[in-house]
């Protein structure tokens, strides 16, 4: 044990944290660049092709199997929004505006972000566990030994599939939030809310509300799968390591999603999108 005072200890601890974080970000940047190179090769050179079968399997695993959960969660988000936003609008006699609020909040932010959070648990954790198990059972090394690049055969399809499916699921999610809000208006809130609900929402929403949401969804999808692949591939220490990797994947994904959402929103705000 060192006998240095607590302040020194704190500085050391903070320094170590920063170093690990930078190491992690660096590792992911390398993984992303190698992935991008394989995707580029697959598109522009005739020699390397996409592993269509692998990609399909991953898209089904990431997207199709989670569509029910995403839809369910998002309906409830719509219900919550409708119930929480109506009381503050009442003093102004603007209960009807709840539809506009649900539209903007849902399409711009809650659709993509909640979908991404669900997927970080659904897809991210399972990708990390799967790759981690493959590391532990020497499968990754075996792949390299038979001259197959693990990034090309494992990481590329997972990142592409998560990227595409997060966007597609966000489209479903956006509408589920809107539906959740409408159902609540119809059943609980009264005619001021539900009469003209869809018309007001359509008047409020611009294409850019929809598109900025999807851009963010794409960013989140890449972040989730990148973190999951990175954590999965650097598992050490057997089954326990796999468990740690899945936990880390979910925690880091959620933090990364929120930070990315904030940065995206700042950029969109600056460019008045």
């Amino acid at each position, binding site marked *: 044990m060192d006998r240095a005072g607590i302040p020194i200890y704190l500085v050391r601890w903070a320094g170590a944290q920063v170093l690990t974080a930078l190491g992690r970000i660096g590792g992911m940047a390398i993984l992303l660049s190698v992935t991008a190179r394989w995707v580029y090769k697959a598109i522009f050179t005739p020699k390397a092709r996409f592993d269509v079968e692998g990609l399909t399997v991953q898209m089904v695993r990431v997207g199709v199997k989670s569509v029910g959960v995403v839809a369910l969660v998002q309906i409830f988000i719509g219900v919550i929004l409708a119930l929480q936003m109506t009381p503050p609008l009442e003093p102004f006699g603007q209960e009807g505006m709840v539809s506009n609020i649900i539209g903007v909040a849902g399409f711009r932010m809650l659709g993509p972000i909640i979908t991404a959070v669900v997927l970080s648990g659904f897809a991210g954790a399972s990708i990390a566990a799967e790759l981690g198990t493959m590391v532990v059972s*020497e499968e990754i090394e*075996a*792949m390299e*030994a*038979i*001259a197959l690049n693990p990034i090309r055969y494992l990481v590329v399809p997972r990142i592409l599939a998560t990227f595409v499916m997060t966007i597609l699921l966000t489209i479903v999610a956006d509408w589920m939030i809107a539906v959740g809000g409408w159902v609540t208006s119809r059943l609980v809130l009264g005619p001021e809310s539900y009469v003209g609900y869809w018309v007001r929402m359509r008047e409020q929403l611009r294409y850019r509300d929809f598109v900025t949401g999807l851009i963010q969804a794409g960013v989140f999808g890449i972040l989730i799968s990148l973190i999951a692949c990175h954590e999965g591939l650097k598992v050490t220490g057997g089954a326990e390591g796999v468990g740690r990797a899945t936990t880390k994947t979910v925690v880091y994904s959620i933090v990364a999603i929120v930070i990315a959402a904030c940065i995206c929103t700042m950029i969109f705000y600056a460019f008045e999108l």
Partner: protein
Amino acid sequence: MVETQEQPVRTATPVISVVDLVKRFDSKTVLDGVTLDVFPGETMVIMGGSGCGKSTLLRHMIGSMQPNEGSVRLFGEDLVVLSEDQLNAVRKRFGILFQSGALFNSMTVGENVALPLNEHTDLDEATIDIMVRIKLELVGLREAVDLMPAEISGGMKKRAGLARAIALDPEILFYDEPSAGLDPVTSAEIDQLIMDLTGKLGVTSVVVTHEMDSAFRIADRMGMLDKGRMLKIAPRAEFEAIRDGEATGDEMTDLIRQFLRGDSEGPITDRRRETGYEEDILEMAGGP
């Protein structure tokens, strides 16, 4: 198995040549100047206790680890300086059987064996199918072609892993602890398989193991690795002589002898006992 085999004819050029290999993890030196030549057609067994660096040595020979110093040459190519593509070209010329078999769990046994053929040859489906069956027959596993890895036993996994390793007709086969975790009979079967393949396919084999029965069964030459150093490389007969002889008083020979015989008393255990027990206790008590 009593089978006195003549030493294989030593051609001038080794297929594997490891020179002064040094590997450190952080400050710990795992391999400390290992030099080793393996000649065509022979079976070289590398022995050593847990943590002596034998798996690390194997990983350098297959190009999945980079050394801090020294070089590893396969077929005359220095693995350290090769690009990814060049390294992959070398990888197609050797096969490796991992400790657990390392089958891809999402594929059937047959698909596992077919994978290298699908990815690295232009053969059509039907031909690959036949080749998969031939390879599986060689390891006695033809009936398991459609089973998933989770459905077969540890010994079968190793055979299937072996079938995959020989899919591309390699010139060198590496084995990482081929008999670890197997019962004696299955372990003997795997050893027989290794010898059969060496005979049938004429491959060079490198086997890393700490199972002495197995080592003496299959080896032409043997190397003893201890604490990252290659203590001795010699024909099997020399090691047999050390094992069956009396203690000589020579530290290194006795150390090898203890390891080969699996004795609980000897230089290895003495060394472990020597390392500063009293000092540790005193330090824990607050210093002398």
